């Protein structure tokens, strides 16, 4: 009887051992896992602050009228896009300027100063040049020339921390004109370059 019990116990133990072995084998066959191989992913989203003149990059007045306001016929479409890290702080502004305010447009020895070139913007808010304004301001955020600059728009205020506007874009329309009222001009073809740049300061 003892022998039978012992035999029975041994049989059960063997059974359990075999079952365990089979179970282990089954597990190894259906879900064998190799050692994890880590792959490091690195992606840098660089600071983006892009200004593009979408249209109107060349403005022409075929025939100036002396002692009058002469508006350039087509507006300048300016697209600005930014994608900046959190907490970049400061003010985001789009600045337009003439390098040499005394000679915004020139023909030979004759000049039209930047104070006679006026701009007006419309488009996304907030905009600074809602009325015709001469380019006679000082540099903004270190960009521009003294007496030949205007900020077209800037985002301080509710974007002061710029957490909510660290990424965005906007399109603005810039109208330009020459105010020659009371300013005698010599005959000739005047040419000049208006620079546009975005800056955080």
């Amino acid at each position, binding site marked *: 009887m003892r022998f039978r019990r012992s035999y029975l116990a041994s049989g059960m133990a063997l059974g359990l051992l075999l079952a365990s072995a089979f179970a282990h084998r089954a597990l190894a066959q259906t879900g064998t896992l190799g050692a994890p191989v880590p792959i490091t992913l690195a992606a840098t989203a660089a600071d983006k602050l892009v200004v593009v003149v979408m249209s109107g990059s*060349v403005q022409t007045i075929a025939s100036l009228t*002396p002692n009058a306001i002469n508006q350039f016929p087509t507006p300048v479409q300016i697209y600005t896009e930014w994608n900046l890290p959190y907490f970049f702080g400061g003010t985001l502004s789009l600045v337009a300027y003439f390098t040499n305010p005394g000679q*915004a447009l020139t023909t030979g020895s004759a000049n039209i100063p930047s104070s006679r070139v006026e701009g007006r913007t419309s488009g996304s808010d907030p905009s600074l040049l809602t009325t015709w304004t001469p380019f006679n301001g000082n540099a903004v955020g270190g960009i521009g020339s003294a007496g030949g600059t205007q900020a077209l728009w800037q985002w301080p205020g509710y974007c002061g921390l710029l957490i909510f506007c660290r990424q965005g874009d906007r399109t603005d329309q810039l109208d330009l004109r020459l105010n020659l009222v009371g300013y005698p*001009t010599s*005959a000739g073809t005047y*040419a*000049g370059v*208006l620079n546009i740049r975005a800056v*955080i300061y």
Partner: protein
Amino acid sequence: MNRMFKQVLLVGALAVMASSAQAQVGTLSNGPVTVVLNATQAPTLTLTTSVASVTMASIGANVVTPFPTFNVTATWNLTAGTTIRLVGWFNTPAAALVSGANNIASARVVGRTGVAAFAPFTGAVSSGLGVAGGTQQLWSVNAAPLNGTATTNLDLALDYVGQPSPNAGVYTGTLNLRAIVQ
């Protein structure tokens, strides 16, 4: 200890934020992008007179009878040129002034600017302007500077020295004036 650890973490986070903010101030867009502005002012040369017409009451025989003096002003805004010339002419030299079938030839019409001597309108085409036999260059002025204005008097008269006066009548005619830059 735990509180101190939090404080250290907070200070560290603020330092990172401040560092990040400082790093971004002064960021510039690519560029600058540019807008080219071109504007052309065409050269101009205009002539005006102080009166539109002049009248003499009676044409004298054997004398030079003057019309009232008037002024001619040239205004110019040029890109080139050295001299501005004033040219006057009659379209039909043989009939500068007409009264019915009677004519006064341009040879009897004399003119001058300033204090120059009177000269008849009998010249050839001048500087491309005028009519052969009915033209006179009246005046020239320096075009420098290229943006300027100048005024001169213009005296006109009918010269019947050695001649009887023309047939009675009211004679009318048109003197053409034009400026040219050369």
